[in-house]
């Protein structure tokens, strides 16, 4: 072998060594990353895209550094325990950052809900308070109005009671007066009312319409009794016997009735409540054929009408 033919031998050797070195390098560079590193990269991307970047940036930074360290380990020795373990740790750090980011979001959401709940409670309190005040106000008004109503009712009851008492007293007085009258005069009860009869012979002189002085006490007593019958109407009726002409008797009976009316008015009986009429001899109560009957017919009747 010549020197020239021998010369290529070292070159071939060098080429072979270089090829082996390249193959080894290629093998190293193309070694697939361990599952832990793939997962760590994914987890980091997830954390970075999630809440961690905004809520817990420091934790995300720690995860980033851990992932960088894992990438370096993988670069240095792809299949070493160092590479696998550091990728595992990077995965956990990324997961931790993600979890803490989510936790921070939840804490913030809770704070938001709590704040809103406090505001709502405050509003509720204010509304309830306002309602309570309104109710209290309405209740106070109601109570006032009730008290006034009660007061007015009491007054009304009192008035009714005193009115009743007054009416009772008046009725008693009226009855007493009429009873007293009945002891000295002819008083009888008829369908048209209570009839008080004054004998014509006692009150008037024959053929006259002037009240005798002796009859005044009797008429005073009648006037006092009538004044107690405030709510009644009184009719004074004059009557004669059948002696003489009707014209004379009618005129006489009317004058006598008026005389009695006037006297009673003077004695305090209301003029508006008393009327006078002369009936002459048209309404006898006794027999005109006898002296006694005629005396009975000569009369003045005062009728107290039944209750108005």
């Amino acid at each position, binding site marked *: 072998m010549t020197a020239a033919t021998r010369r290529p031998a070292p070159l071939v050797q060098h080429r072979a060594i270089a090829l082996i070195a390249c193959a080894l390098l290629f093998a190293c560079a193309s070694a697939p990353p361990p599952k832990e590193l793939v997962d760590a990269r994914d987890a980091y991307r997830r954390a970075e895209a999630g809440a961690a970047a905004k809520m817990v940036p420091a934790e995300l930074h720690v995860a980033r550094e851990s992932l960088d360290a894992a990438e370096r380990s993988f670069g240095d020795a792809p299949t070493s325990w160092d590479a696998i373990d550091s990728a595992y740790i990077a995965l*956990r750090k990324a997961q*931790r950052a993600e979890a803490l980011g*989510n*936790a921070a979001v*939840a804490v913030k959401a809770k704070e938001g809900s709590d704040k809103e709940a406090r505001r709502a409670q405050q509003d*509720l309190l204010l509304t309830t308070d306002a309602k309570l005040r309104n109710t209290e106000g309405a209740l106070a008004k109601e109570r006032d109005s009730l008290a006034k109503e009660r007061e007015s009712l009491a007054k009304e009851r009192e008035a009714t009671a005193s009115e009743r008492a007054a009416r009772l007293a008046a009725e008693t007085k009226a009855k007493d007066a009429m009873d007293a009258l009945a002891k000295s005069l002819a008083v009888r009860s008829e369908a048209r009312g209570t009839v008080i009869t004054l004998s014509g012979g006692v009150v008037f002189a024959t053929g006259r319409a002037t009240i005798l002085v002796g009859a005044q006490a009797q008429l005073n007593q009648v006037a006092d009794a009538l004044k107690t019958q405030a709510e009644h109407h009184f009719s004074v009726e004059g009557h004669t016997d059948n002696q003489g002409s009707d014209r004379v008797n009618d005129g006489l009976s009317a004058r006598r009735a008026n005389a009695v009316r006037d006297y009673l008015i003077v004695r305090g009986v209301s003029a508006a409540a008393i009327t006078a009429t002369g009936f002459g001899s048209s309404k006898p109560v006794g027999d005109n054929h006898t002296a006694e009957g005629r005396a009975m017919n000569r009369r003045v009747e005062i009728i107290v009408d039944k209750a108005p």
Partner: protein
Amino acid sequence: MSKPRSWSLALAIAALGCGGAPRPEARIASSQGAIRGAEEAGAEGVPQATLHLKLAQEQRQQALELIKSGDNHRADLLLARAEADAELAVALAREATAKAEAEKAAEDLETLKKRIAP
């Protein structure tokens, strides 16, 4: 360099490489602290957190075995993994608690709103 001298140097490097890593005291303590922290954070009440707590405990136990057999370097890495799992368990427990509390607050708010304007 003479042959005997180069051999002794190689032996020294090998000795350093194999049994030279110191016992990872700091990591033993910090991993233990992280596991305790996860337990205190209530990790055992949250399924996903429980899983990582268990992983942390197992890896720590495995690391302690490795320390006994003298593999301190690998033990250190396992302890770091255990610590990372324990810390993740804490975070997961915190996330679960925060989410539950947020849900409860939202429900309470809803109930209150219904009371105000049924």
